[in-house]
């Protein structure tokens, strides 16, 4: 095509879901923290898959996406190196859940997470394991998605 001086540009852009700035900021902080703390390195990857899967399971239900996101990303904090005990005997007795809840309550508000939703996050983390009996909708989604994650651990998901 001859260049006559005019210009026709075609612009292509992905349509990301609209997010408000504050919301995006605390979520980015959660992701950044877990990305750094998830040690050994293979501990990272489960969290984004888990959140994506749990949200998918919850489609059509009135779950709170902030609670689900925070709980899914934080729920295993207490199993990471640097967070769990190093001593084998202590580790054998270690219950990572209370530790994870306590640290989540400390960390999330500092990143701008809505304080009124902290109880929801704590409750979802409290009952996220297969033997638990979750009560809230976010907790049910988290537990069920976590079980599915263990069945299909390498399911692909959107990049983070």
């Amino acid at each position, binding site marked *: 095509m001859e*260049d006559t001086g005019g210009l026709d540009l*075609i612009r292509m852009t992905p349509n990301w879901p609209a997010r408000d700035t504050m919301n995006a900021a605390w979520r980015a902080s959660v992701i950044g923290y877990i990305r750094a703390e998830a040690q050994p390195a293979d501990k990272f990857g489960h969290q984004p898959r888990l959140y994506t899967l749990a949200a998918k399971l919850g489609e059509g239900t009135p779950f709170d996406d902030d609670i689900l996101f925070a709980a899914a990303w934080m729920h295993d904090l207490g199993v990471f190196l640097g967070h769990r005990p190093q001593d084998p005997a202590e580790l054998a007795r270690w219950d990572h859940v209370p530790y994870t809840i306590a640290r989540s309550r400390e960390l999330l508000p500092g990143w701008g997470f809505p304080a009124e939703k902290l109880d929801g996050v704590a409750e979802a983390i409290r009952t996220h394991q297969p033997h638990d009996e979750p009560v809230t909708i976010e907790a049910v989604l988290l537990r069920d998605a976590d079980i599915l994650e263990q069945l299909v651990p390498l399911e692909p998901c959107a990049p983070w």
Partner: protein
Amino acid sequence: MFDYGRPRELHIEKSLEATRLVTRAGKIAPRVLDDRTLLIDVEYFRVERIPVNVSRASASLSDKDRPEPGLAYLFAAAGTARITGPDFEPVDLPTRGMVAVPAASPPSRWRTRAAWT
């Protein structure tokens, strides 16, 4: 359903159950706006045709429904462009060339060949 002659069971009924019989496939008419033409704007992506006479600032095309800048690809369907900005070296975009504009890019100005030669 066809399995290249292999003796595996074909799940035809289940396949039909999972088949979406009505889709949104088909031609979509472009939407002409004041400053550009929206060729398509769907759930996952948007494609616009942006005419540039002499020079145009990227900021003039910001979208109210997109407060956060995002990744964009610019394709020169006709003409050649020079992309300039205060914080980077000029980037030339040849006819039918394409550039990726990262979300973190500073505002830029797109100029036609006539505007910089």
